[in-house]
């Protein structure tokens, strides 16, 4: 089995248009949640979220590209560009033929779908844009990253709701670890902050009224965000031969299914995934210093996740730092694990643990060190990233310092 390292990272999300700005915001504990701004927002009862601020598609892409790129694809391309640039790789010859892309998304080209339905149902038009299908399909972002960078190996999209990014990164990890691909571009993207997207989520009645307060007493639910994160995963020997800057090692990955309820999380399923990731990474639980929690801010998730961590880590749970960066960038659904992996890399590389902001008071149901409100300096040798999706899909990644 090959060892797998991260040699590039990129993002665009509500906290910033790149990795440097995002990590700076996490360090400051800045919350990007605010009033939503899009058509018909006044017909929604949920009017807060985290949009990418000041985003101007026309400044990034030309007219022909925009005819083909949904916002979800645009975000993925921006994040992948940054990650690949940082890695210093350019893909040609055999490297291009064997390297690929695995991206996660829950809803793909949601804005294209929403706008097209509006045109035919509300405005009574009988025609939609000719590129509607290639624009809205869930694999569009992955396809365009592959085309842009000439990645000709395995490429596909993973959709497992809120665990999509972690599943995608785990798949890319496996492809490199098994020797099938020397390099994989991976991560996830989501863009469904529009009338139809929020209207559907309203129905579940789990959305917060004020802001996202994971693990805090007085939390009222989740808040939606948008954006993308991307990473270059590379076979360690390959990276070392070319003298690449190694950001972290992806040491393990595990997936489980609750096989119980379509929305309610399971302590047992989550704990099994956490234990599985530790085992796969060959990590003793005492070696883990930080867990980037799924931490959605719903009563059910936060309570269940803390119980699962206590089960999996035993007495060491009391010495763990556990934070939810969703308190800052909100819940990017299929893109969330990718943006959250940036906080994991910051912990093991820079010794800085991102906080859980908007924290008002400890919840007795969440009796862990949730790094409330302020980032913390700490030496972290290994860290986990949790993702627990609707459907009972659990995916946990384990990273080590390089």
């Amino acid at each position, binding site marked *: 089995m090959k060892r797998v390292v991260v040699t590039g990272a990129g993002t665009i999300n509500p906290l910033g248009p790149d990795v440097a700005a995002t990590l700076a915001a996490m360090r400051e504990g800045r919350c990007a949640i605010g009033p939503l701004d899009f058509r018909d927002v006044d017909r929604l009862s949920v009017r807060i979220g985290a949009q990418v601020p000041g985003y101007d598609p026309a400044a990034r892409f030309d007219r022909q590209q925009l005819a083909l790129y949904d916002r979800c694809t645009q975000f993925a391309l921006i994040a992948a560009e940054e990650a690949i640039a940082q890695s210093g790789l350019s893909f040609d010859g055999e490297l291009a033929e064997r390297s690929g892309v695995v991206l996660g998304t829950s809803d793909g080209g949601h804005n294209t779908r929403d706008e097209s339905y509006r045109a035919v149902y509300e405005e009574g038009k009988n025609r939609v844009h000719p590129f509607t299908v290639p624009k809205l399909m869930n694999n569009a972002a992955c396809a365009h990253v592959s085309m842009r960078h000439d990645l000709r190996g395995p490429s596909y999209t993973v959709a497992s709701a809120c665990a999509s990014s972690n599943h995608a990164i785990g798949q890319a990890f496996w492809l490199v670890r098994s020797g099938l691909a020397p390099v994989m571009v991976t991560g996830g993207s989501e863009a469904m902050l529009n009338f139809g997207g929020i209207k559907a989520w309203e129905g579940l*009645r789990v959305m917060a009224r004020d802001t996202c307060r994971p693990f805090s007493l007085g939390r*009222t*639910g989740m808040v939606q965000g948008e954006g993308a994160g991307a990473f270059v995963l590379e076979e360690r020997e390959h990276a070392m031969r070319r003298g690449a800057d190694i950001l972290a090692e992806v040491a393990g990955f595990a997936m489980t299914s609750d096989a119980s309820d379509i929305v309610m999380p399971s302590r047992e399923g989550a704990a099994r995934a956490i234990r599985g990731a530790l085992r796969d990474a060959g990590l003793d639980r005492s070696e883990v210093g930080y867990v980037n929690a799924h931490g959605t801010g719903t009563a059910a998730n936060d309570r269940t996740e803390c119980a699962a961590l206590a089960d999996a880590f035993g007495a060491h749970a009391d010495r763990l730092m556990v934070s939810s960066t969703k308190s800052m960038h909100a819940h990017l659904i299929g893109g969330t694990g990718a943006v959250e992996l940036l906080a994991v890399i910051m912990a093991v590389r820079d010794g800085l643990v991102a906080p859980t902001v908007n924290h008002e008071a400890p919840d007795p149901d969440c009796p862990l060190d949730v790094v409330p409100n302020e980032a913390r300096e700490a030496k972290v040798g290994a860290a986990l990233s949790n993702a627990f999706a609707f459907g009972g899909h659990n995916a946990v990644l384990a990273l080590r310092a390089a």
Partner: protein
Amino acid sequence: MPSDIRSRTRTILAEQALLNPSDVADDQSLQDLGIDSLALVESIFAIEEAFDIQVPFNANDPQASEFDISSVGAICGAVEHLVREQKGAA
């Protein structure tokens, strides 16, 4: 007609519980009827649609919502109150 609101609400809950409305009593809880959290959210949606009202309810913390869901009778009473409040005299 308040009694009509009560019987329509009871019918909505009975449909979720796969029971005859006549088998649903005011002193029963949602748990007694086998209505779980998803079925509750669906019931509230059906109530909102049937009476054209907004029901204040957050699934994160159902007990803390203003909408009393402690029993079938309490729900019927709360719906009557909301209809009166939001639609004028019922």
